[in-house]
């Protein structure tokens, strides 16, 4: 009763837009195709944005800093790529295998790490992530080792009623975007559910959550697996996108990169991870054309952005818009 009227009375243009944030996010990502200098970069951005979205489910919503998410991105990519290279799987099946591989990895690693907290959690996820990396590196008969997994033949995705030509960069972009959109819709639904608010409650005060009768460990484990699934989907799409899987995507550098993208965009926001991915990858693309020391330039810009946008670029903009609306 009262809650409904209270909501209606405080409706502003900002809240109206916020309620349509998934649709707006998908439109904004589709527009990337025209903003980015070339299609492959746009595809890269939405894949890394998805990766950061998965990471942010842990970092922003549950308050868990994992430095091992590259392992699940990698398991997704290798699961997908291996099933095509060695099993001749169709693209859609390969994507599913990639996601399932990441889910298994996250379920196993999650069970081992979920009891540790804070910096220990970050370190244990990093260490176990590196184990996954080492295994994929050593299994070079299957994975190609340091040369990466090559020869992923993914030129057509067959949906039955229609086919997508993945050789065409625009079609490939929309193919990837469809999966990103699906993930966005599911994550939005998850965040709006009783489970979603439980995650935020754990971030705010885990002891209190336990005192309310929740099994905090089980909740954290489940969100770890869900995050792993999203990171895995991003990795699987990446394998399709590149047609190869470079071994360094499983490395902790990639885990750090995705954390940085999330922070850059704003970890307490829904769309921030995509903004962070877009800024980083566009900067990398533009600056590396002028100098091989692009990391220095990007690093300095990163420092500046963190100084002037403490809540991340998107997070800070949202806060300003909210106070004005």
């Amino acid at each position, binding site marked *: 009763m009262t809650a409904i009227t209270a909501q209606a009375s405080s409706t502003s243009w900002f809240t109206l837009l916020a309620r349509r944030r998934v649709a707006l996010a998908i439109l904004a990502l589709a527009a990337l195709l025209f903003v980015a200098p070339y299609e492959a970069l746009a595809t890269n951005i939405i894949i890394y944005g998805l990766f950061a979205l998965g990471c942010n489910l842990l970092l922003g919503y549950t308050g868990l800093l994992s430095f091992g998410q590259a392992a699940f991105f990698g398991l997704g990519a290798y699961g997908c790529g291996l099933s095509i290279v060695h099993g001749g799987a169709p693209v859609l099946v390969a994507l599913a295998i990639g996601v399932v591989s990441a889910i298994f990895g996250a379920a196993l690693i999650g069970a081992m790490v979920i009891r540790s907290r804070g910096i220990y959690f970050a370190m244990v996820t990093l260490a176990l992530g590196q184990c996954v990396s080492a295994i994929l590196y050593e299994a070079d008969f299957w994975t190609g080792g340091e040369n990466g997994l090559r020869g992923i033949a993914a030129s057509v995705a067959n949906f039955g009623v229609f086919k997508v030509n993945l050789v065409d960069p625009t079609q490939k972009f929309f193919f990837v975007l469809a999966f990103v959109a699906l993930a966005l819709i599911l994550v939005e639904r998850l965040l709006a559910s009783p489970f979603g608010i439980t995650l935020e409650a754990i971030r705010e005060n885990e002891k*209190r959550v336990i005192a309310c009768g929740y099994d905090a460990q089980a909740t954290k484990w489940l969100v770890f697996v869900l995050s792993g699934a999203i990171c895995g989907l991003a990795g699987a799409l990446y394998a399709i996108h590149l047609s190869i899987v470079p071994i360094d995507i499983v490395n902790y550098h990639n885990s750090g990169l995705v954390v940085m993208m999330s922070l850059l965009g704003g970890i307490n926001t829904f769309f921030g991870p995509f903004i962070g991915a877009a800024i980083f990858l566009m900067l990398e693309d533009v600056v590396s054309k002028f100098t091989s020391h692009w990391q220095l330039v990007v690093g300095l810009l990163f420092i500046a952005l963190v100084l002037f946008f403490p809540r991340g670029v998107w997070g800070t903009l949202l806060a300003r818009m909210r106070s004005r609306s």
Partner: protein
Amino acid sequence: MSAAPIFEVKNVWVQFGGFSALSDVSLAFQPGQLTSIIGPNGAGKSTFFNVLSGSIKPTAGSVFALGHDITRMPQHKITRLGVAKSFQITSVFPQLSVLDNVRIAMQGAGRRFDLWTKRDSMIEQIDKAIEVLERVGLADRIERTAGTMAHGEQRALEMAMALALQPKALLLDEPTAGMSPEETRDMMDLIVGLAAERTVILVEHKMKLVMGISDRIIVLHHGEILADDKPAGIRANSEVRRVYLGEES
């Protein structure tokens, strides 16, 4: 007074290193009573409270609640038996709304792993949460961010969260800590009202506060039971006066 006890503590020891915070404490709590546990600083009050709520596991001895052995039971399961607690240090979800704070406590009893229902559509739960907030006098604060409220209001919110669990037993650790005299009075009134419907165990430092409202008072001193009596008996107890009343009126 022959009903099955709601809590039973048998020969409980809690040791931190070589120090015994509780030494061979045995107590039973009858349903429906308001029992206060008092004692000077360092008497073991909070330790005893934490043993009942399950956040400290005893070194030796056993603890029963509502007919279950909770000695080694994980805390969240003890809560689900119907034991709610408030914290000594204010403990809410500061960045979430007051309404969400209460709703999280409510769903702890049921829809913990519901990943699909939209919370906006759970009208019944929203209404119940508002009812609980009305009870503690926060009905006009539902949209506020919990962390931005005054200290006394946050304590009241905490009480609402404990109530939202619909507990059979309510454990309160110094619920009036840091409150103004006026807020303290409101809180004590609320506690008396709550005690009419359920078992309440109250840990308190200030003896004056609990004298008028308790059915039974237990005085702890150096981790042992010094006295266990009705308020009148405690007031007359010379031992209690010596260790406790002597230092603070």
